[in-house]
């Protein structure tokens, strides 16, 4: 099964679990599996249209899925998926 690394700020929604295993074979299915198992994650991962939020990056290894096949990116048993919150801000 593939491994998903949950970022520290979202672990309170996964019973403080840092690494989860998923059976999904694409990123879209992975996100679906995560939000089914941990419903409180949903609003932090998906926008109102059900798309991955702009402030959330999903990486397969060191590659952003936006540079791969996005939600259709394949997930294999040894794939390590990182959910990476966008960190930004500033005065204005």
């Amino acid at each position, binding site marked *: 099964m593939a491994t998903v*690394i949950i*970022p*520290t*700020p*979202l*672990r*309170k929604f996964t019973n403080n679990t*840092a690494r989860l295993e998923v059976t999904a074979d694409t990123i879209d299915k992975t996100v679906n599996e995560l939000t089914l198992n941990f419903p409180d994650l949903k609003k*932090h991962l998906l926008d109102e249209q059900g798309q991955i939020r702009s*402030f959330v*990056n999903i*990486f397969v290894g*060191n590659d*952003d899925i936006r540079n791969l096949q996005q939600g259709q990116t394949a997930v294999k048993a040894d794939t390590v998926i*990182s959910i*990476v*919150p*966008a*960190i*930004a*801000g*500033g*005065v*204005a």
Partner: protein
Amino acid sequence: MIIIDTQARAALLKDAVAAFPDECCGFLFGKEDENGLRAITEIQVVNNAKEGDKRRRFVIAPLDYIRAEEYADENQLQLLGVYHSHPNHPAIPSEHDRVAAQPWFSYIIVSVLDGKPDALRSWRLNDDSRFEEENVGIVANSYTNS
């Protein structure tokens, strides 16, 4: 309540002054105890990856974030939050800060006025996605990595 080790605080302020008039940014590492008391024992300076004008914005690259999580994991620390500076502005989160903020993280903001560090304040999102201020304490060598 969040406690910052004096050395970590000094490193944070040094980064904020060095980056002036640009915004600096970085990560906060430490431990949160069972009562929710947070102790920052070290900081990690991160490149402000904002393209163009960095005087009013900061961005941390995703790969720097992944490395920070790995660092925390390898060193039995928790990634407790993020710091950044507000050059010539108060240490109060902007709407841009709030929209981009993550739950649970502590957001330390240091004001730098004319190149000199001013107020240092810490903020966390509440369940309504509004920032609430955390009390900040400073101690020498507050917590060990035990």
